[in-house]
Each structure stands twice: as structure tokens, then as C-alpha cells.
């Protein structure tokens, strides 16, 4: 047995020396290479998983936001339609009311104008009657050369006015 070991060159000091060589690389790699690298890979894996989760959440949020936006848009459209309709109705009602109001005012103005016109006509006609009566009296007094009595005045005025009215 010992002869075989000797032939193979096996001896305890060499085994210990080789164990030290391998032990050194084992310890150093464990501490300074495999530990940090596996931690880094784990960290990267965690980040990727987080990123995937975040992406999934973002997609879900986006879908929810899009759905909400669609809902809000639909609501806004409906509201806008309702408001436009209401505005149209209100505008139509207001227009009608204003038109009626304007028509009433116009009627009032026309009526007032007519009344004013009538009053003016009556006033002018009165003045005209008075002037015409006076002219008739003056002309009659000059033509007849007599002094007219109040009864003559009243009779001549009545006749002259009836003539004017008939004409």
C-alpha cells in the first residue's frame, strides 16, 4: 500500500500544500467573487421582477385610466349635450320672451305715438279753429263794418267750424 502511495508520489506534506492552494482560492472566491456576484445577480433579478411588476401595474393603471377617461369623456359629452340642449331651450325661451316683450313695447310705443299724434292733431286743430274763427270774425267785422256781438261770434264760429269739418 505504502509502495503504491510512494509510486504515485502521494505524501502528507504535499497534500497539505495542495489543500492550502485550493483552500486559498476557495475562501477568496467565496468571499470576494461568488458572494458579491450572486448578491448582484439576486439584486438584478429582484429589480427586474420589480420592474415587471411595476410595468404590469402601470399597464393596469393605464387601462384603468383609459377606462376612466372614456367614462369621463362619455359623461362630459352627455353633460355637454344636455347643456347645449338646455342652452338652446333657454335661448329659444329667452328669445321668444324678448320678442314678445319687444312686440309689446313696440305696440306701446305705437299706441303712445298714435295718442300723441291724435293729441297733437287735436291741439293743432283747436288752434287752427281758433285762428280760423278769429280770421272769420275779423273778416266779417271788416266786411260788414259792424261790431259783432258775442252771439255773432258764437254763431260765426259754429258755422265756420262746421264748414271746416265738412271739408
Amino acid at each position: 500500500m505504502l509502495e503504491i502511495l510512494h509510486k504515485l508520489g502521494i505524501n502528507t506534506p504535499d497534500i497539505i500544500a495542495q489543500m492550502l492552494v485550493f483552500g486559498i482560492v476557495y475562501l477568496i472566491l467565496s468571499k470576494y467573487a461568488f458572494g458579491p456576484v450572486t448578491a448582484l445577480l439576486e439584486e438584478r433579478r429582484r429589480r427586474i421582477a420589480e420592474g415587471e411588476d411595476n410595468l404590469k401595474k402601470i399597464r393596469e393603471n393605464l387601462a384603468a385610466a383609459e377606462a376612466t377617461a372614456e367614462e369621463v369623456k362619455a359623461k362630459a359629452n352627455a353633460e355637454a349635450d344636455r347643456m347645449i340642449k338646455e342652452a338652446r331651450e333657454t335661448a329659444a325661451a329667452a328669445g321668444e320672451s324678448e320678442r314678445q316683450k319687444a312686440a309689446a313695447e313696440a305696440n306701446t310705443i305705437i299706441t303712445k305715438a298714435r295718442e300723441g299724434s291724435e293729441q297733437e292733431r287735436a291741439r293743432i286743430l283747436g288752434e287752427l279753429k281758433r285762428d280760423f274763427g278769429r280770421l272769420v270774425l275779423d273778416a266779417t267785422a271788416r266786411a260788414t263794418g259792424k261790431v259783432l256781438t258775442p252771439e255773432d261770434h258764437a254763431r260765426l264760429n259754429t258755422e265756420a267750424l262746421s264748414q271746416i269739418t265738412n271739408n
Partner: protein
Amino acid sequence: MLADSVFLTSIISVLSDAAAAHGEGAHEGGHGGHHGVDPDAKGLFAGDGVLSYITNSVLVGLIVVGLILWFVRGAMKKVESVPGKQQNFLELVVEFLYKQVENIVGPKIAPQAFPLLATIFIFVTVANWFGLLPGVGSIFVLGVGPDGHGQAPLLRPATADMNMTIGIALISLVVWFVITIKELGVGGFINHTFGPKGGLKGAMKYGLMPIFIVVGVIEVISIIFRPMTLSLRLYGNVFAGENLLHTMATLVQTGNAAVDFICSVLLRIPFFLLEILVGVLQGMVFALLNAVFIKLSTTHDEEHGEEGHH
């Protein structure tokens, strides 16, 4: 690109070693008349001091350690989330190996077992490949050995020295034992080794107990022999490969130096490529066997039972 450089290295190695092979006859005669690679690693320093323990294979082991640590230091010098080339390669190797280890030993044990198994794979593979480089085994130094009058190759494939393979196997055994005890406890380990398996109960359990005890004894013997089987497997493959290359280099002896040189180059090329493959395969086999040992010893019996039910 990598394949090209490996091939180029092989060619250079073939050329270099072929040139050396012609001069080896005289050297071999000087150290015991071995044909091929000497199984005994030679001390490089005379005397009985600490330096006398540095053999040519220990020196190669230290160089391999230096190369690995130099690369790792370069990769880990400035660790970034977006890795550089070296860091990226290291991450690739670590991630690949971690997945393999995790698949075998499971996610719970993987963090404990991974450093050992990855170190074995990387160290053994690099050491095997280093043995194929030009100059390894073909550059001799004089005035070595205990008497200071011997001669020996300056560099010798580290894994072609059984002291190295035994050393790796012993460290593997120690780490295996630590992981197993941490996982099962001393009682659990004894129960796992000698106790009844397969979820037996009642009379059957006690009836078969002697058989399981005998099986446990056999298991212990197999555990004791593991370092020997592991180390012999690796040593045998690498040592045989080295001898094969040596034999191919000296196979044609016509007496015409030019013909002998060309033949020694051409005959070895396919075997060099084979040895590149064997180098990584042996690293993988050594690591995988250890992974399986760890898996077998850290699997709880109830898991066995559950797996059996499945």
C-alpha cells in the same frame, strides 16, 4: 473568437512540446527512467525547509490560483449594474453554475454548496487547461530535489499530481460534512445514515433495522472512500491525457529530426483538442459528483417519502 484562441494555444503548445519531446530522452533518464509523465511531483527547492514543499505541481497550482484571482479581481474591481466584459463573463459563469447547482441540491442548500462546487469546477478546469500550455512539463530545472542534484520539469499539470486531487477531495469532504451537519444535525445525520428509510413503520421498521444498520456501515465506508475515488478519477483522466500527448509526441522515431518533429506535431493535434474537452468535463464531473453527494446527504427522509409518493 475563444475557440480560435484555444485552438491557436493548442497548436503553439504542440509545437513547443514537440520540440521539447526530442530532448526529453536525456532528462527522463535522469529522473528514474519514466516513460511519459512522472507520477511523482518534484520539489523545486533543495533542503528540508518550507520551500521544499513547493513542488512543480504546487507551483502550477499557485499560478492557476493567481490567474483566477487576477481575473476575478479585474472583474470585481468596479462592480456596476451594467457590467463590463470581464464582469459580464464572470456573471455568466456564476449564473450558469449556480443554476446547475440549484437544480441538483435545491434552492435551500445551493447558497452553501455553490462556492465549493463552483471553485472546484473553475479551478480544476483552469488547471487542466493550464497543463496544455506550451512549456508545462517541457521546461526543466536543474539542481532540485532533497540532495540538490536532481532535475525536474519547472511546471507540471497540477491535476496530474494526485496530492492535488486528494487535497481537493478532502476539502470537498470537509465542506460536505459541514453542510450535512448544519442541515441535519449530528443526530439527523446518524439517523439518515443508519435509520430505516422509505417511511417504514411498526414491526417492519424494527425488523429491517439490522439491514439498515449494515447499509449505513457500507454508506460510511463509501463516504470514507469518496476522496480516493474522486481524486483517482480526476488524476487518472488528466495523467492519462498527459501521457497520451507525450506518447503521441514520441510515437514516430525515424531518426530524421524533421520528420519526427512534424509527426509529433500532427499526431498530437486531435488529442490536444480532446484534452481541452476532457479538461472541462473532468471539472464538471468532479463538481457534479460532489453536488450529488451533498444532495443525497441533505435530503430529509420525509422528502424522500414525499418524492416516493409522487
